């Protein structure tokens, strides 16, 4: 189940959630393994995103009324 994230912040948020879920005693071993896998994948995706990004610059045109 690959989730789509809109922003880097959402990815980090999910990583934080995974960390919390993993640490909880209520999550069984099977789920822990799944969470672990998701966490590692996601953190690598985050790092890749950061390393490959380039600042985007857009210009907001002055509105004509002003």
């Amino acid at each position, binding site marked *: 189940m690959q989730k789509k994230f809109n922003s*880097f912040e959402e990815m980090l948020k999910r990583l934080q959630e995974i*960390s919390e879920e*993993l640490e909880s005693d209520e999550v069984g071993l099977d789920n822990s393994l799944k969470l*672990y896998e998701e*966490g590692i994948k996601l*953190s690598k995706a985050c790092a890749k995103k950061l390393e490959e990004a380039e*600042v985007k610059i*857009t210009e907001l045109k*002055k509105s004509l009324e002003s």
Partner: protein
Amino acid sequence: MKEDILSQILSVSEITNQIRQQLEINFQQISIEGEISNFKPHVSGHWYFTLKDSGAQISCTMWKGLNNYVFFKPQDGMKIIANGRITIYPQRGNYQLDVKSMKIAGEGELQAAFERLKKKLYEEGLFEENHKKEIPQFSSRIGIVTAKDGAAFQDMISIASRRYPLVELVIRPARVQGEGAAEDIVSGIQELNKTDVDLIIIGRGGGSLEDLWAFNEEIVAREIFKSKIPIISAVGHEIDYTISDFVADKRSPTPSAAMEIATPNTEDLLYQLTELQNEFQNILQNKLDGSRDVLNKVLNSYGYRMPQNIIKNKMQYLDNIWYRLESSVFHEFEKKKNKIEVLSNIIDSNNMVKIQKKGYAIIKQNNSLVTKAAELRKEKHFLIKFYDDEIGIN
């Protein structure tokens, strides 16, 4: 000539109207520098005063809606630059300056005006902490109101590229000094408020107090206060404080520093990501170890060992029984069997004696019975067994 003039007799209203048209068309937008005198704020909210220099004076009015935007309280003797148009007040035969905006002329005046506005806005509560919005940690889009070709913008781009290249910078080019700068900054903030930027940085590089003045204008301050999106004010150098710095959600000493406040550091993030991966690994390892311990504990528990013990006990019991069977019943059986053998031998031998007594004898050669005459080797030793004794032949 005389007649011409006479035939052109005008009423006072007519001539006033003509003068009015002439003046109003020619002086639609002018700036006048002068000293304020006779300043009278009317209860209606309008202002009436005179601007003068050593040789002349001109009456001025400033209407309520407009003088809202004057951040300083005009005082007699203050030198200002008034912007507006010439109008005629026919009832009194006066011409006057209808002031649209005014600003202070001269540095000392600026400083005093700055202090007055600061005090006024402070008293209104515009600087209070509880109005300040939090600066987001991970902005996807950052709006910037500044000069597009200024050094400040270039600095911000390079900081963003180094620290957080995931960000999108949305520049809203604006005049940052001189006439109309404050208004342009105000519209910039308004326009960016209609976009989905997470944060706005307004600012410019260093300059004189006058250069930075747009950021000390009340309209800018009020717009910053109104903005729904958090604003960082980044004007000039470390030592420069502007009104926008006080109203903004965050003051930054320089435009570069503003971008540092606005973005997380990629290096830190990468480090955190590695830490997180280690953490995941450790947690999972601990869980696996924990589960293994639990499993071992269970397997070694008395309860789990019970069945094995029971089986072992039964096996031992079985072995015992077998041993006892062997040693008692089986042994007994062997004993009985031997006894039977002894007895049957006795019985057999008893039979033989009976037969021999009737007159039979047994011939034995080489320890075996000789039952046929042909088998007997007469020349060799043999035995004749009677019931009472035996006789050896040869």
